[in-house]
């Protein structure tokens, strides 16, 4: 059995139960092949094309019918996992314990879209790195300090001189820059830049007992993910893979618009869209001048 097979990853988990993100994944976009699809559909297709055949979707219990209706085409591959209490991101993952069955798994957040210049599968790089290193790997991206307040951010050191792999030493949710300067500087980063989670992870089975323990310690408190990831980094080998790909948080202002433009610019509609945009700007200028 080779290394890849030991760390075979055939499950993916998408979380979409947060009060602010319940129906975001059902927003519709025109994908790079000119097909109208929901964000979730685009994500699931990417996951499936990475060789994964079972996808768990953590949702608010009231939303199950809605999602089931939208995702009929994936029947048999999907499992809907209700999160009965809104107790946080970590809790949402914990709800999937049974589905995950103690195996490593790919994890994506439901309100993000991931793209790259070439149209390749973004999650696949993370899966390959995890299989290669036989450990949890999270996709990270260099982020300016003015934006780190929106993301989970890591402190890390370079891993075995690899150009894009880091050993994670600390995980902090949405830090302020003062804290980041103290604890999250990464050798080789540009001044004022930090490594923030990209939204694509492969987690080792060790994560769930940590979450479980934290949950038991404070069963009514909101259970975030960052503290558990910090613990994961402290107790196991946990790497970060730097990526130059694009991530679009469709929950943010203009997030959907930006994702749509990026999608269209990577497909056959590129020229059409550019022409349309240019046309709009020109006309706007002309009218302003008149």
């Amino acid at each position, binding site marked *: 059995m080779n290394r890849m097979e030991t760390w075979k990853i055939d499950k993916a988990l998408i979380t979409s139960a947060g009060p602010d993100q319940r129906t975001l994944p059902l927003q519709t976009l025109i994908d790079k092949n000119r097909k109208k699809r929901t964000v979730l559909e685009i994500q699931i297709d990417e996951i499936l094309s990475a060789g994964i055949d079972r996808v768990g979707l953590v949702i608010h219990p009231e939303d199950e019918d809605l999602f089931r209706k939208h995702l009929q085409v994936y029947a048999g591959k999907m499992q809907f996992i209700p999160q009965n209490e809104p107790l946080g991101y970590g809790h949402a993952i914990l709800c999937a314990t049974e589905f995950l069955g103690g195996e490593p798994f790919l994890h994506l957040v439901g309100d993000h879209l991931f793209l790259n210049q070439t149209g390749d599968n973004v999650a696949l790089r993370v899966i390959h790195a995890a299989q290669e290193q036989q450990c949890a790997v999270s996709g990270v991206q260099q982020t*300016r300090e*003015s934006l780190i*307040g929106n993301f989970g951010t890591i402190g890390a050191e370079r891993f075995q001189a690899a150009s894009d792999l880091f050993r994670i030493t600390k995980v902090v949710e949405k830090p302020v820059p*003062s804290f*980041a300067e103290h604890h999250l500087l990464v050798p080789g980063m540009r*001044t004022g830049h930090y490594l923030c989670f990209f939204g694509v992870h492969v987690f080792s089975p060790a994560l769930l007992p940590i979450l479980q323990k934290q949950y038991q310690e404070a069963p009514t408190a909101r259970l975030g993910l960052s503290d558990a990831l910090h613990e994961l980094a402290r107790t196991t080998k946990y790497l970060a893979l730097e990526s130059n790909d694009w991530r679009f948080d469709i929950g943010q202002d203009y997030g959907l618009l930006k994702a749509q433009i990026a999608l269209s610019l990577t497909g056959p509609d590129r020229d059409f869209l550019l022409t349309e945009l240019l046309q709009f700007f020109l006309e706007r200028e002309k009218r302003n001048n008149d």
Partner: protein
Amino acid sequence: MGILVNIITSGKPEVRDQAIENICAGMTAAELLGECGELELFRKNNRNLYHKVRALFFLYVIHRYYLLFLPETGSGALVPFSVWEHILNRRFEEAIACLLEIQQLKGLNQGVSSALADAYRKLGFQTLTEQVQQSVRSTTGNNWMFRVGHPLDHPLVFRKEMVTKDEIAGTYPVIREATPVRMDLSHSCWSDIFFLGMDFPEGARVLNISVDLCISGEEETPVPPVEACLRVIDEPVIRLVSTDLESMVTITNIASLFNFAEDYLGLLKAAVIASGLVPPGMEGLNMPVSLVLDRLVGPGLGFELVSQVNNIPKGSRLAVSTTLLASLITACMRASRQTRHISGGLIEEERRLVASRAILGEWLGGSGGGWQDSGGVWPGIKIISGEKAHPGDPEFGISIGRLLPTHKILHFEDVSGETRENLQNSLVVVHGGMAQNVGPILEMVTEKYLLRSEKEWKARRTAMAIFDELAGLLKEGDIRKLGELTQRNFDGPVSTIIPAVTNAYTESLIASSKEKFGSAFWGFWMMGGMSGGGMGFIFDPKVKNEAKEWLLHTMLREKKRLEKALPFAMDPVVYDFRINEKGTTGTLMKGEEALMPLKYYTLVAPLLLKKEMTQLSPGSRKELELLGKVSRTRGMYKQLMSELFVRMVPQQFQKNERLLTLSELLDATGFSKTMHEEIKAELKAGRIGLARNRLPVSVKITDPQSEEVIRAVSSRPEVEKRAGEEALRKRELAIVTLAGGVGSRWSQGAGIVKALHPFYRFSGTHRNFLDVHLAKNRKISREYGEPVQHVFTTSYLTHSAMAQYLASTGSGEKDGLFLSPGRFVGLRLHPMERDLRFYWNEMSHQVLDQQKQKMAENLQNTLINWTRQMGEGDDYTDNEPEQCIHPVGHWFEIPNLLLNGTLQRMLRQNPNLRYLMVHNVDTLGATADPAMLGLHLASGHHMTVEVISRWMDDRGGGLARVNGLLRLVEGLALPDEEAEFNLSYYNTNTFWITVDELLRVFGLSRNDLDNPSLVTAGILEMSRSMPSYITIKEVKKRWGKGQEDIFPVTQFEKLWGDMTALPDFRTGYAEVPRRRGQQLKEIAQLDGWIKDGSAEYVNGLCSWE
């Protein structure tokens, strides 16, 4: 390698800590110059801060204290104006290069060495300041703030709970930060100055205690004296409110947040910036502040930051302003998620960040404290120590220590609860009422540390040992011994390093405490900076309550006795205190609890109540409703209605009263309304003014030939001295000490009587200027067997205090001691804008370091607006009456002797009187030297003027040929400032005058002195031919609790030096040694005056008993 360079670089403490005096004392000029050359080369090529700065100070010392006094050091004007300009503009390297070139070409010269000393010293301090600033900026956690240059890059967001309005009460939550102040139990000889910590971390240690306070008898229990409140508001603005300064400002533009001088809220602005809410990287942006608030708080929202200091005035030595800054910064950081918790205490990392940001804030606001001053952020008792810089620290490789010290909290197992209780039961904390600028003291401390002068270095080592002992005693809990030790610390090391730290007031309080309580008074505790403000007295707990009352009474009595002699800013107070074991603590108040402090509403509510209800925002209406409710039901808010009444009823009566007193004072002091109105009209019409003081540029100003000045420096014929001695024996001489001025530079406009300021301890006792002049007279009188008559001229500002003082010495006219009261005063005017602009832009001023200069420039615009609003050229009446009127220059002080009958009484008492020695009150070396008197007699001149060879700082005119006529010329009158730099001699303002010739030029004789109309006519006639100079002076306006504003005002003066231009009053000039001729104008000069032997010289002229 030079000996001194070796001292700097040596790794051995016994070499490194040698005093420069011991090495330079025996050196020849060539050897000293050799050392200078080595030091210059060394400091230029060295990156190590400590090496660089110590070399600069060594260079300063060699020039200031050695080369200047060598016989081979020549005089004469060699320093060009460009050097002066370089120094004023802080281009010290350029100035030094230029001066060294002159020295190379022309040899040693007093002007050049004094200028080099000045430039090296200032460059030393600039290097230090820059390093501190650099370290503050590069402190981890602060870097990002200097990178964020645009609102779109702003990384902070307020916590969700801060922007969530309470649905029922309609209020946003309020963060209330309550912060104790710090007391320094060890004093440790100012070891908390940044440079010491960065250079000698092992010597930088303090015992610092966080305390709550209240004024004894006025309030019930001690509380954290400093509070900051922050809440979100429904307007996209930043509103800053200081309840204790009763000031409020609404910021709508980023630029105005960086203008620290336009209002009283500079400290709050500094807090907003240093906390990163509007980071320092945004300085210079002229954009609406709403762009920042939109991201930081939310669209359409802003925030309000309120400061409150509970009853601690300025000068408390409790680091109130740094503590307030830290408190405000903490509140801002809590709101914007920069602390882990929105309420409760802080963790160590957060406290350190707050401390570093408080330092940053102080730098931004142009002020500065020590590194222990944020101590109140930490809980209880702690030892704060300097820390070595390690790899990774921004200071590593540049200085030995880090900027920020470490704080070791002493827990109850280190210092027991009982000891803490005992300390509280023994210690009486007071504010003595004096508020002084400690800036010069801190510079002196730095200088002395760097030079390792033997006495002072030994004192520092002793202080370090005392510190260890003190820390030990605190652990043992022996408060009695602790009191003895703090007293020993004060009497020993603290007073040795800076003698000026104590004063007659403090000494009298200590002596009275000893006398009153004997062995139950355990010791005095010097709290920091200078004494006279915040101080501690340790008593046996059994007498503490009695001692508290007695101390208050004694302080009030002593203040009354000394208030004309020392700069008091307020009445003394006694505090109750309690050790605060929590440190800074935040509380989040929500719903109906979310209220600002009571004082805030007494300030803000009247503005709201004056509006129609329909004009109020829903938020304001809700708040008023809530206020109405709580003012009936809740604790301190029950006072709200009565407080509002006091504030809303106009307080006109007080103002009328003040105007009346001023006009009464004017009537009583010989104020001529006609003359005043004439001057006012001339000023407004532009016929007189600062620019008009100057002689036309066509006037030729040249340096006199050296033979035109008699060398009183070199030995004069013995026969002259004998003639002088003979004249003294015959009582032909009287001394006139000009003491009508208030010494505005000496007390920075505080309005004390300079003559009565006990500025130095001669022969174990604090003595004032008047004491020194009397002691010199005593010595001469004893030597020549006859009392020398002595007149002190006075003015309305100084007369009664001086009369009272002289009466207390038991001397009077019968002993030949006279007071000559002033007969002229002027009323100050609001300056003309053109004069202010001329003063700031056309006349040279020292450019300050970057941030202070920005402050000063901002302030200039504010002051120009102030004078426009008040009316340019109109009477200045908005201050204490005595601060509104002014003496009209020392020219009048001589005619006054004639006018007020003093001279006549002197002649009646002593018909032999033929000569006057007239000198300034601050010319301490001027004595009735028989050789000088003999010189005047032999010369046959009507008046002999004493001049000295010009040093760099001797500004204000001098001896010159003006269109061929040799005369004194005032600096104000020179066509341009450059002209002064060609003049070799500076006027000491000491004159030897032949009485009959003086009377003659006024058209009088001895017999006319009993004819007042003849005397008046003679004086008026002469006064018309004397020029009047318009000057700008700074005057302090005191308000609130020890707060002071400084305003520029216009006044006029006539000066005695212009008498030298009279063709029929033959005047000669004699060059005297500097120690005889130098004047003490500023407190900052004192240290050099002591160090260069001048104090000892003056002491030698005196007979104290």
